[in-house]
């Protein structure tokens, strides 16, 4: 395997990792702070991508489209919170799964109804189109690099917001001792609403960011949702730091496993067998990782102490 191929795959893995982190960050907080299983987080990512597709077409500019997407995704998340989610806090996990499963069916069909089944494309901003020379004999699309940088910047911002601001302190306190926080006079319901809306906005942002390089279609969030669950379970539910590290681990393992798994196996077995085994094993790697992590640490790598 050549070095440039390895670099490309590492960049691809990082890109998947930061994307997973953007979605997982909101989900892990909703899980951790509210003890709420939100299966509908993946469709919020899809809604973000559709909003971006719509606004970019309307305004003719990616940046304007992105600027419009964020508040609308936030408002949409808050609307869902008011209409559905806040009625399910403190209820059985099964009720939450049932309702959010219903929401997946509803929204997947709703976008099909509104925008049709055909995949939509989103024009890339001119300034980020094209590719640049990363190293000898290796060009990489600028947009994908920008995606990685944007993800890392947002991760840093979240880290600062959670650990060094008043609202971040309340969120951290709420995730371990929500009754005590409420007893101290904090409006915990409003805190929940903020966390929820913010998580929905991050998922929507992730959708808007990848819209130019993926096709925007119904059900696009369904499989990503499962990867996100893997991330937050490995990282430890409620932990932003855990979500970040686990997201990069999952992104890299999945990408590198698919790219190099068969080649590595070829060292140990015949080419044909290595190909078949590699293709079978590669998609399973992250689930094996999760099983190993759960076996060794049943509450994830960075458990939030209750």
């Amino acid at each position, binding site marked *: 395997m050549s070095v440039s191929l390895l670099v490309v795959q590492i960049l691809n893995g990082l890109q998947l990792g930061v994307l997973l982190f953007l979605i997982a960050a909101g989900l892990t907080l909703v899980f951790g702070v509210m003890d709420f299983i939100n299966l509908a987080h993946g469709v919020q990512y899809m809604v973000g991508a559709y909003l971006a597709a719509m606004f970019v077409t309307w305004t003719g500019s990616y940046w304007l489209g992105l600027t419009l997407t964020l508040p609308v995704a936030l408002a949409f998340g808050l609307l869902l919170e008011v209409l*559905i989610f806040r009625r399910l806090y403190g209820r059985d996990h*099964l009720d939450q799964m*049932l*309702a959010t499963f*219903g929401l997946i*069916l509803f929204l997947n069909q709703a976008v099909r109804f509104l925008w049709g089944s055909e995949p939509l494309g989103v024009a890339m901003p001119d300034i980020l189109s094209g590719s640049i020379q990363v190293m000898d004999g290796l060009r990489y699309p600028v947009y994908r690099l920008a995606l990685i940088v944007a993800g890392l910047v947002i991760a840093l911002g979240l880290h600062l917001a959670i650990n060094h601001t008043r609202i971040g302190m309340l969120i951290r306190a709420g995730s371990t001792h929500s009754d005590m926080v409420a007893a101290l006079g904090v409006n915990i319901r409003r805190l929940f609403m903020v966390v929820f809306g913010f998580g929905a906005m991050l998922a929507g942002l992730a959708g808007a960011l990848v819209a130019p390089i993926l096709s925007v279609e119904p059900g696009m969030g369904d499989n990503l949702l499962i990867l996100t669950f*893997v991330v937050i379970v490995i990282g430890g539910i409620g932990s932003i730091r855990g979500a970040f590290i686990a997201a990069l681990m999952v992104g890299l393992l999945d990408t590198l496993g698919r790219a190099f798994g068969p080649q590595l196996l070829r060292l140990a077995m015949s080419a044909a067998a290595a190909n078949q085994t590699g293709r079978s094993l590669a998609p399973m790697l992250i*689930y094996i990782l999760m*099983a190993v992590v759960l076996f060794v640490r049943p*509450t994830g790598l960075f458990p939030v102490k209750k």
Partner: protein
Amino acid sequence: MTGGTAAAANSSRAWRHPAVWLFAAFLALPIPAHFGANAYILSFATHAVALGLAALSLDLMLGIGALASFGHAAYLGIGAYSVAILSDMGHDDLLVQIPVAIAVASVFAGITGFVSLRASGVYYIMSTLAFGQMLYFLAQSLSAYGGDDGVTLAARSRLAGSHLLASDLGLYYVTLAALIAAYVLLDRIVGSRFGRVLGAVRQNPMRVRAVGLDPFRYRLLASILAGSLCAVAGVLLANQSEFVSPAFMTWQRSGELLVMVVLGGMGRLWGAVLGAICFLTLEEVLPGLTDNWKMVLGALLILAALGRGSRLSQLFKGVGR
């Protein structure tokens, strides 16, 4: 508890038990289907009965044992691929396929349960989901069996050498017999010492531990039992559709099984069967009314979760208890 009616057939009030009505309706169903113009009803009913068996097995975990497995469809896949792979190897008799499916399901449930059951709450739910996905991707990579596209079965399975399953009616009654046998078995189990302990673990694991029993063992055995029964459902489902693909074990299918059990009312076994029938009937009827039926179904699920007392079997409150 359902267990209190373990000997439903012997009780003088047996006719009042909803399960008896439910199964009587199933037994009689081919009569109108025979005279009616729509032969499709029988195929739909076979599908519903097979998934009813899958939901029933999940209820042992979810309703009795409070184990919200989000990967139960994996066992449907194990059953279905047992049929596809064994038929391909020339073993097309249910007497071979069902034991193999049960054995594979038991091993899978044993290994994954050993890991999952160490975790609790959300971690348990998510780890079962992950194991289900693992099997899904494994099936997707089986290029000899069509990979993602799946494989069409050359013929339905035989039963002890006979071609009973070749007729739709034969397949229907064999599937129904499997459902009724599983119901009677689980009803007995729920009423047995094992079932009582499993129910006690749901209510208070710590007290169970305090009286010297190990909740882990009971939960593991319940998972193995539920997985095995669900694999039988997979064997029958594959015969009904005469087609096997990874779509048997998507996580959405696992979610649907959970929905069926919750909708029908947990912990009463027949509720899961009723939930399966109602869910599948909705899936069948709604598309005839509107193109956007999934929005209607989704909204119904949301309302069902939001509204208390909306669960189907609460209509039958006091009956069969």
